[in-house]
């Protein structure tokens, strides 16, 4: 049996919660002081998820890159693979908030979308 230590983030108290995990899943949870903490600890052990926010390159934009996010949390174990997959992604300006940047990132079923507008560069601005 393995003991996992989890700091609860539901309030500033930050309870140190101990979760005993056996072959059949969670055996016991202790150290929490409210139900929110209990649920948080169980989720963190069973299926921890994190939203990934980063940037991707923009071609022909007023800014060199655009900020993006996974539409929802993806499994915590996929976070670095998600970053790796987005490294090679380039998009063309203009980009609008909510535009699809990458479908089904790392096969998680979750899309990556833009979180900022990036306008197209207007070369006429530089002609005179």
């Amino acid at each position, binding site marked *: 049996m393995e003991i996992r230590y989890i700091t609860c983030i539901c309030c*500033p108290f*930050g309870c140190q919660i101990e979760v005993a995990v056996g072959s059949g899943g969670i055996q016991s949870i202790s150290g929490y002081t409210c139900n929110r903490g209990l649920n948080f600890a169980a989720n963190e052990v069973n299926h921890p998820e994190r939203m990934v926010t980063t940037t991707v390159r923009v071609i022909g934009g007023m*800014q060199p*890159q655009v900020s993006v996010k996974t539409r929802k949390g993806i499994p*915590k174990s996929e976070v670095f693979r998600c970053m790796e997959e987005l490294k090679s992604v380039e998009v063309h300006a203009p980009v609008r*908030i909510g535009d699809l940047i990458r479908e089904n990132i790392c096969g998680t079923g979750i899309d990556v979308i833009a979180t*900022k507008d990036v306008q197209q560069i207007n070369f006429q601005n530089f002609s005179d």
Partner: protein
Amino acid sequence: MKTYDLIVIGGGPAGMAAAISARENGCEDVLILERGSSLGGILNQCIHNGFGLLTFHEELTGPEYAARYAEKICALNIDYQLNTTVIRIDREKKVTAINADKGLQILQSKTIILAMGCRERPRGALNIPGSRPAGIFSAGTAQRIINIDGYMPGHNVVILGSGDIGLIMARRMTLEGAKVKVVAELMPYSSGLKRNIVQCLDDFGIPLKFRTSVVKIHGDKRLTGVTLARMDDRNKPIPDTEEFYECDTLLLSVGLIPENEISDEAGIPLDPSTCGPVVNNDFETEAEGIFACGNVLHVHDLVDFVSQEAASAGKNAACYIRRNGLSNKERTVRLFGSDGVRYTVPQILNPDRKDEDLTVRFRVGEVYQNAFISVFFNDQCILRRKKPIVTPGEMELIKLRKEQINQFPDLKSITIKIEKG
């Protein structure tokens, strides 16, 4: 010369919310002056999520939160000038601003809202000995370089200070492939939010060392490392606790200072605890018709609170114009923080004008567990609320009902204290 109803200085979250609220409450000629090249201020580089849970009941990133307000500014046809720096204001509500298109402008307004935000404490404000190599950045500068400009400032990183921006940057740089070796914090607690400690440090196994600081900077042209040491209770390095960390980058996340140079020059009294203007319950400074909100008033943890406060300031500026500039300040009640409460905002209550409940925001100086937040009207305790925990990293608020206040016609002072349980 055209006279504006309201000039808002700063187009970040506070300035945008204040301008929108003022317009919605009947202010006609509103102008926002913004130093940056777009509305949104610092939110534009805060690409992480966690914004807007209170305001929109969903978890947005910084640019998305800013866009919600920027869209509203456009929909309401509120005028704004970008790339425009305000260099001077005065008590007659004259605003001097410069930009590349219009040159120097002197604008007259009936009211002003100060919404300039804050800036990071720089290396010069700390006492770190050693040389001055490249590679030492404030955390927010590194955030801008990575998230806006698209460069990595370094690969092996030590972070001094566990403020929220430092924690966010620990995760950001780790995700981008850098090695964040340690976060050192002088205090015995973090000033950052719990969720950031867990999701930005614990998730990646980055150690957080309390009561630890940088005692030496190594490197000539480029940073090659730092020496950390444990600190005693008087913030002196403890001998034989030095540890060398090889790194090319040191990020400083050691606090934020409201940016009040132009307020100070206009003779607006500042509170030494907040470094922001002294305000009354209308968010009006001691200069009549000049209001303040957001991080220029006091540093916030959550943008949602900035927006709430700014909306209130905007509404009050609109009311001030409707009243034709008359401030009713007949009765003045001082608010004080003591016994662990570092400051209160507002610092002044003008109860005759109070037609709604009073929200007092404050911060404590250290961590208290199972303590009471007590409110005294003159010497009488009128409220005692038990809190399992209060920490310097999380702003507290207390609401006082207007009936409670009206029951005390000879009210002179309101004091907020922490009493140990």
